[in-house]
């Protein structure tokens, strides 16, 4: 060990990335208008605003149950349809089941789907079908394909090929191979991913409600816009309870169905 080890040279390797990072931070802070002054006054304003929320309007509580149920139901139906469609797309996108041209087509579709945020999809669907829970449900279904399609396709590509060969050897056609060879192998993972996605769908259905998909998100957003803050606080409490319960339930169920390599 000599003196050179403590010179600037030792840190030069880190200096460049760090200075680039700092430059980017300063640049984007300027673009976004981030300021300490704004944050300070914002904290004071936000704190004062929280005072307006209390106490929650308990009379509005029964009115919130229906929309909350609607949010859950939208997410549930979207998960059902989404998982089914994702399975179809994943089977078409898996290298060991599908034909090469079908595979690239399906993969491309899944990739495009994944790069469209659900909220943008719902904007387009609302323009086509009008307001209501159906566009929200369809948007969540399409969102499922983007995420689950890729995960399922990867799961199918990892399955044990020996089973498939055995089934093929006794004369099964493509449909039978899929039903008796592929699906039983990926089923635990499908269920685990589906529950994970259901959790995401619940959160998203709250968000989508605000752009016109109905449910508790709509109640929350409209109460905020009408300055009915007590009512908004009630909706907030219901939402938090909803998300919390669903998260616990899904976590518990996923722990029961333990799968190797499953999402946490």
């Amino acid at each position: 060990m000599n003196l050179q080890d403590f010179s600037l040279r030792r840190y030069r390797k880190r200096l460049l990335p760090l200075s680039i990072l700092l430059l980017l931070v300063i640049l984007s802070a300027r673009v976004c208008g981030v300021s300490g002054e704004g944050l300070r006054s914002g904290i004071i304003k936000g704190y004062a605003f929280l005072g307006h929320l209390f106490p929650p309007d308990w009379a509005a509580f029964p009115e919130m149950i229906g929309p909350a149920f609607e949010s859950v139901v939208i997410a549930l139906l979207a998960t059902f349809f989404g998982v089914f469609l994702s399975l179809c797309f994943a089977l078409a996108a898996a290298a060991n089941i599908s034909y090469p041209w079908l595979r690239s087509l399906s993969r491309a579709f899944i990739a495009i789907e994944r790069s469209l945020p659900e909220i943008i999809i719902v904007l387009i669907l609302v323009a086509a079908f009008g307001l209501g829970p159906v566009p929200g449900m369809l948007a969540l279904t399409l969102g499922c394909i983007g995420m689950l399609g890729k995960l399922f396709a990867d799961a199918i590509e990892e399955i044990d090929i020996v089973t498939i060969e055995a089934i093929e050897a006794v004369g099964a056609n493509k449909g039978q191979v899929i039903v008796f060879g592929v699906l039983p192998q990926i089923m635990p993972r499908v269920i685990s991913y589906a529950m994970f996605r259901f959790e995401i769908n619940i959160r998203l259905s709250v968000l989508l409600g605000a752009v016109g998909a109905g449910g508790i998100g709509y109640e929350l957003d409209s109460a905020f816009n009408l300055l009915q803050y007590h009512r908004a606080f009630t909706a907030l409490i219901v939402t938090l309870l909803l998300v919390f319960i669903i998260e616990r339930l899904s976590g518990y169920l996923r722990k029961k169905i333990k799968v190797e390599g499953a999402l946490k």
Partner: protein
Amino acid sequence: MKNPSPILLPSVRYRRRATVFVLLSLAITGISIYLNFNPLLLFTEFHYVRDLIGEMLPPNFSILWTNKTILGSVGQTLAMAFLGTLAGGTIAICMAFLAASNTMPLKLVRIFVRALLALERIIPVLVTVLLFVIAVGLGPFAGVLTITVTTVGTFGKLFTEAIENAEHAPAEAIFSVGATRWQVAHFSILPQVLPSFIANFLYAFDINLRVAIGLGIFGAGGIGLQLYMAMKVLHYPDALALLCVSTALIMLTEKLSDHLRKKIL
């Protein structure tokens, strides 16, 4: 699995499958009726989608260079996602060190930080953004704060688990030659978990870009707001062009982040 599942007679197996199938289809039908959702409508009313697509085509790409604000909004969205990811990730790392059992000796602090992280995870994005828009006003700053909070919620728990799963032997070795707790965290645990943290940062940026586009609609500005406005005033060709821009942006980021992540891990 430890105990192999008992072998069932095919008749029992089929009956079980049939029950699950019937229950599922009953649930789906029930919910569809409740939501007034008729799958056939998708086909009979498909002409609405066709009309919309007809109105959108061809995309008006000239808006990208005639309207100077578009490029600025793309920059705003990117900057929002970047700052939010960096700030949120950094706070998440700090909180993870406070919540992990091998770096934080005080149980009370651990429980408090864990509760805070759990609370942050269940607060919906919608609520956070509405609150921040009221607190700091419309604009990307509210978006940055929202993304920061969500990122802390998503990654706090993950980072805590990563720290707790770090190898104990190096930490003990350093501790036994007289290192302080701070030094143990700095020289033994941080080098072990840093690559996975950076990989997670890249992943988070990927996700946060989508969130940033979505947040634009709720008043955080950026490309999401431009898209929303174009849809609202029925300038569909402009909207399609903006849609293509945001899709390309997300796809590029995803490819880039995948590439960088593979290099790091």
